[in-house]
């Protein structure tokens, strides 16, 4: 009786584990306003979480998982030690990374379109905090001929920055 009970518990646990394993989906990730198709990605049923392989993480965002954290050039976000499993897991010989949990960690807004399986990642806190320091946030944009210009190119001059639109 006791043994059957235990088997029952074990089966329940196995079913629970299996249902937590997400099936593969195709996803479009927009990061820094650049679109990357990701196949496979994973979204555990009933969640808003998006998992991608660590290789696709780098392809879509240029961030890499390193021992010290999730890094891009000199920028590094350490992952909370007690919550490693929220960000990283191994499955079918690949290492997976939870991009939405990372967005939450770096205070990055996320918008999702279910019909097209598209995920948009907005500005991270490190990209937004410049403004509060009274320093003008830098950016690089093309002119009509497609040549890039950065705000920093005008350092040493007074700048009048004006937005306008055709609409």
């Amino acid at each position: 009786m006791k043994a059957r009970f235990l088997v029952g518990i074990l089966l329940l646990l196995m079913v629970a584990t299996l249902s937590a394993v997400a099936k593969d989906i195709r996803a479009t990730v927009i990061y820094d306003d650049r679109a990357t198709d990701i196949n496979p990605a994973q979204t555990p049923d009933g969640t808003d979480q998006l998992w991608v392989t660590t290789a696709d993480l780098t392809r879509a965002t240029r961030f890499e998982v390193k021992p010290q954290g999730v890094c891009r050039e000199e920028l590094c976000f350490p992952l909370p030690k007690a919550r490693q499993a929220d960000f990283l897991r191994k499955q079918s010989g690949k290492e997976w990374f939870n991009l939405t949990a990372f967005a939450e960690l770096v205070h990055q807004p996320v918008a999702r379109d279910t019909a097209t399986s598209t995920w948009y990642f907005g500005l991270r806190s490190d990209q937004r905090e410049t403004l509060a320091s009274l320093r003008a946030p830098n950016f690089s944009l093309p002119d009509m001929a497609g040549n890039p210009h950065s705000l920093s190119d005008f350092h040493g001059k007074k700048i009048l920055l004006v937005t306008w639109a055709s609409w």
Partner: protein
Amino acid sequence: MAQDTGGVKDAGKWITDAKATYTVLIDQEHLVSKLYNMVNVPTGVWIDEKGRIVRPNEVAFIDDRFKTFTGLDSAPYLNALRDWVEKGDKSAYVMSEALLEAKLAPADANALLASAEFGLGEQLYKTGHLAEAIPHFKEAQRLNPKSWNYKRQAYKLSSESDYGTTFVKEVEKAGGSKVYYPPPDLPKAGDATDKKP
């Protein structure tokens, strides 16, 4: 900085016609509005030689072509600009740090989420998914009702009727065209109370 999802296709004509001697850039993703928390056009920011903001977001008309609509005269703003060009940090129009800090407060959680919904809408539009884009533009408009950029850019990409409203109706709802643009917050001539210590 043209805030135009349509890029050169929509903004190009204006740039060619203006025969500009200054740098004109095309901002398809409204990146500058995102980085500087801008909600309308034209919006001007003054940045000094060290890359420091000395006057943040405010309406920046360089002529009077919209004066009948806005009730705003461009002269006080242009005079203030000339004063700054001439006097630099000593200009009375350079804002105090306390005022700048108050005006440059970070976007709230809803405004932040709105910027992501708008960005998603733009991306869907660009990849031929207008029908899917519209609900995200609507969500951006709901989350940040202060942004005219989110309304007007979305109307331009399809039609006002997709949003069950018109620009004119929205302006009326906001109090009419004479308050559509809050006037620049300029100290009165000779009043230097807004000067840095």
